[in-house]
C-alpha cells in the first residue's frame, strides 16, 4: 500500500511526465492553447494510460520480450479507438471539441513510455498507481501550460473572459507561445529545484565542518 501511494505521488510531481521528464510533447504543445480542451485531453489520455497499463501488466508474462513493442502499440491503439468510437456514439458534444485530438493519444509517447518502463515490469496494482499518477501528472502539466497561454493569449480563463480584449498578446496561443511558455515553466521549476539542492548541499557541508571541528 505504501508502494502504491509512493508510485502515485511520484508520477504527480517528482517524476511529472510533462514538466520533469518532458515526454508527450507533441500533443502537449499542440493542444495547450485552451485550458478546457487541455484538461479534457489530459483526462482522456489518463483513461487510456490506465487501461493500457492494466492490460500490459496483466499480459506481461504472455507477451514475449522480442515482440513487446508491436504488442504495446496494438493494445494502446485499440483503447484509443474504443474511446473515440464511444465518444462519437454517446458523447457527441465532447467529441465535437476533442474528436480531432483523440487519435493523437496513440502517439503520446508517455503511454508507450509507461508501458515499456513500468507496466511491463510491475504488477497490476502498482501499474494502476503509475497510470493514474503519470496520467494526472501529465494533465496537470498540460492544463497549467494552457491556463497561462489562454490567459495571456486570449484573455480568458476556462473560456470565461477576464482580460479586456486589447490587453492580450496573440503570440501566446500561436505555436511559438507554447515553446516560450513551456520553457519558462521548466526554468522556474528547475530554478526552485536548484535553490533546494543548493540549500541541502550547504546544510550537509555545515554538518561536516561541525563534525570536523
Amino acid at each position, binding site marked *: 500500500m505504501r508502494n502504491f501511494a509512493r508510485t502515485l505521488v511520484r508520477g504527480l510531481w517528482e517524476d511529472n511526465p510533462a514538466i520533469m521528464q518532458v515526454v508527450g510533447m507533441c500533443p502537449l504543445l499542440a*493542444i495547450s*492553447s*485552451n485550458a478546457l*480542451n487541455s484538461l479534457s485531453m489530459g483526462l482522456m489520455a489518463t483513461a487510456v494510460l490506465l487501461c493500457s497499463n492494466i492490460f500490459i501488466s496483466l*499480459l506481461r508474462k*504472455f*507477451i*514475449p520480450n*522480442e*515482440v513487446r513493442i*508491436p*504488442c504495446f502499440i*496494438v*493494445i494502446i491503439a*485499440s483503447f484509443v*479507438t*474504443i474511446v473515440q*468510437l*464511444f465518444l*462519437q*456514439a*454517446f458523447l*457527441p458534444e465532447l467529441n465535437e471539441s476533442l474528436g*480531432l485530438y483523440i487519435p493523437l493519444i496513440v502517439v503520446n509517447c508517455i503511454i508507450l513510455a509507461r508501458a515499456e518502463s513500468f507496466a511491463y515490469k510491475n504488477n497490476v496494482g502498482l501499474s494502476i498507481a503509475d497510470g493514474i499518477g503519470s496520467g494526472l501528472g501529465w494533465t496537470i502539466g498540460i492544463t497549467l501550460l494552457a491556463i497561462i497561454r*489562454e490567459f495571456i*493569449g*486570449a484573455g480568458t480563463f476556462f473560456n470565461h473572459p477576464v482580460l479586456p480584449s486589447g490587453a492580450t498578446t*496573440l503570440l501566446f*496561443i*500561436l505555436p511559438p507561445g507554447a515553446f516560450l511558455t513551456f520553457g519558462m515553466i521548466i526554468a522556474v521549476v528547475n530554478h526552485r529545484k536548484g535553490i533546494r539542492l543548493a540549500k541541502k548541499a550547504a546544510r550537509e557541508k555545515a554538518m561536516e565542518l561541525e563534525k570536523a571541528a
Partner: protein
Amino acid sequence: MSNNGKKNVVGYLMVRLFIVGVVAAAILGKVDAITAGPIAEQSRLKEENGMMEVLPDGSDFEIIADSTDDSLAGNSTIEGTTVKKVAKSGAGYVLTVLPGGFGGDIKMMVGIDNDGVIQGVRILEHAESAGLGAKSTEPEFYTQYDGLSSGGLAVQKDGGDIVAITGATITSRAVTSGVNDAYSWFETNGGAF
C-alpha cells in the same frame, strides 16, 4: 517447443503477436458493432439540425445534388465546384460547401432563401487552429453573413465588408469563398430546381 532451436522461437513469437492482434481485432469489431448505429444517427441528426439552423423556414428537405451519390439529377450543376451537396425545401436551398482552409477543407453549410438572401452559415467540420481559425464556429463571426444577398463577398483586408477573425485571415477568406461559391450556384441554378 522452446528446445527446438531458432526456427520455432520465431514461430512462437509470431503466434503470440498473432493472438494479441486477433483478440484486439475481435474486441474492436464488437465495439464497432455497438457504436455504428448511434454514430450514424448522430451524424444524421447533426446534418438535419444544421439545415434547420441555416434555413429556419425550411422543412421537408430533399437532396437534389450530392457528390457522393451518382444517381441524382442535380449533380452536373455541382461538378468541379466546392459545392458538395444541395438540399431543397419550400423556403430555399441549403448547400454543403467544402472550401480549403488553413488546416484542410472546411465543411460548412449555407442557407439561401428563394429571394437570394443568405439566411445562415454554419461550420460543421474543420481542422483550423484552436483559438484562432476555430473561432469561425462562433456566432460573432458567422452571423455577419446573415441577411446579405451578394455573391461577391470579401474580407476587409481584400476590400470587402466581412470582419476577419484576428490572426486567422486564411480561415476567414476560406469561409467567405465558401459562401460565394454557394451563392454563385444559387444564381446559376437556383431557379432550375
